[in-house]
């Protein structure tokens, strides 16, 4: 036993035991299950599932979708935080609530709204068909749905951070003759870098792992519009459990990497993130 900060009574031991049992039952065991099931038939079966062409196509698509949607979120997050944290204007709190909105919308509903807009029966459907543009059941729809569900991630980290830092640093730089863009690059960006990284980390995890919203708009075309989470679903529903868990283990490793980087950011840089609810 390590040094205990406070005197531990029997009740304390019981509470620790209950807490750890609860975490093990609902968080630790599911995580272990993923790897155990993936390796249930040995390492060769595991590797075979990962080098299969459909799996590789799914991995490529997921990386592409994240590579488009995460930078879009970064640009939006910085613009929104600059506007909301550096200026005062009426309706600011309503704007912040609207930015948070996608967190309280079911992923399936998020997918549905784009189908109602761009699908064959949707408002813009006939027009899109005329110009031979496909959004639903194609990659643009997957990107749109991903951007929707990850919409608040970066903005939510940056708004409280930039509001706390105030305007003094920027105003000093500007009055010394720096241009607006120089001020942003040399003053603001270094100030917010850890918060930005934190937001990007969580945004990326969600972008690569999104299932519900993407499931509605993807059409599940194997090798074409199948992201990694959708590929896991298909394999699982085909009772190909080893392959399903093998592909799922990639996502689990991504999650573990995200958690490790996140706690390094929180501890090393003493970065206090200001929000719950991702």
């Amino acid at each position: 036993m390590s040094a205990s900060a406070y005197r531990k009574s029997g009740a304390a031991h019981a509470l620790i035991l209950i807490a750890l049992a609860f975490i093990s039952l609902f968080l630790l065991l599911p995580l272990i299950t993923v790897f155990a099931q993936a390796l249930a038939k040995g390492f060769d079966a595991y590797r075979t599932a990962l080098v299969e062409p459909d799996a590789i196509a799914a991995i490529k698509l997921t990386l592409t979708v994240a590579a488009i949607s995460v930078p879009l979120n970064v640009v939006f997050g910085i613009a929104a935080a600059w506007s909301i944290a550096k200026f005062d204007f009426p309706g600011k709190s309503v704007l912040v609530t609207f930015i948070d909105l996608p967190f309280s919308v079911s992923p399936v509903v998020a997918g549905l709204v784009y189908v109602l807009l761009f699908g064959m029966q949707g408002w813009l459907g006939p027009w899109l068909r005329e110009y031979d543009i496909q959004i639903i059941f194609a990659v643009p729809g997957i990107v749109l749905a991903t951007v929707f569900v990850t919409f608040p991630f970066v903005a939510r980290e940056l708004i409280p951070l930039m509001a706390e830092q105030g305007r003094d640093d920027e105003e000093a730089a500007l009055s010394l003759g720096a241009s607006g863009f120089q001020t942003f690059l040399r003053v603001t960006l270094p100030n917010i870098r850890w918060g930005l990284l934190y937001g990007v980390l969580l945004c990326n995890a969600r972008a690569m792992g999104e299932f519900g919203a993407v499931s509605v708009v993807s059409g599940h075309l194997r090798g074409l519009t199948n992201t990694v989470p959708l590929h896991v679903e298909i394999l699982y529903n085909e009772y190909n459990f080893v392959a399903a868990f093998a592909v799922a283990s990639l996502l689990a490793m991504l999650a573990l990497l995200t958690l490790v980087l996140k706690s390094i950011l929180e501890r090393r840089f003493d970065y206090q993130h200001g929000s719950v609810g991702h």
Partner: protein
Amino acid sequence: MPNLFTAQARARRRTIIPGFGLTTGFTLAWLSLIVLIPLSTVFIRAAGMGLPEFLEVGFSPRAIAAYKVSFGTALAAALINAVFGMIVAWVFVRYEFPGKRIFDALIDLPFALPTAVAGIALASLYASNGWIGQLVEPLGIRLAYNPIGITIALIFIGLPFIVRSVEPVLADLSRDAEEAALSLGASPLQVFVRVILPALLPALLTGFALALARGVGEYGSVIFIAGNMPFKSEIAPLLILTQLEQYDYAGATAIAVVMLIVSFAMLLFINLVQSCSRRRVDA
């Protein structure tokens, strides 16, 4: 105090920081394009249906059963998480034990692990031939492919909302009041109910509402363990998807509108709780 107000407003306007028009304009445009306009299409479509048809498809017996399953399981999971999440937060804040850092980092797993991965892992763990499922199978208890399974998935999804809401408040709580109550002869239970719980209540309510809102709309982690039987274990988001696959756009739209209204109400509730507790702290 109109004078003070205009003076303040003038001082604010005088900031030399550039880019207000650009960043605010871009924020509003992007927000409208990605979130507000697409979301409003659902409401406009629903309005076009007319009230009788909307009520008929939005509150069909199958839809009502799905709402009951979604809200019932989300409520059960949020209640279980409120109790155990508070114990977890308490243990993390008050005690030291080996492996604490790892367990603490693990709490955020549901934010980082894709829901589909959580879904298949929970299903194989709690199914009657799984590691945990086979332990209770002889007792005649089935944990998967019924509403209990849905609740298990929603416990997984909701736990970090409670723990991460309660933890910082508990850490900031001064022990003076607690120790005063104990030295005046209060029992530990009395101290918890009369001293600690009232201080934690706003954070607990916020975490509870966040977990509930997330649970009602959750899809990926649930469908693998749910069983998905209409009227029994079919959640509302799955019903939307089923209607959509049958090209029943009216049905999907009506159910989506009902769910959106409920989640907006919960969002409003969370904002109210937070502004009330902030006002109390400021006062």
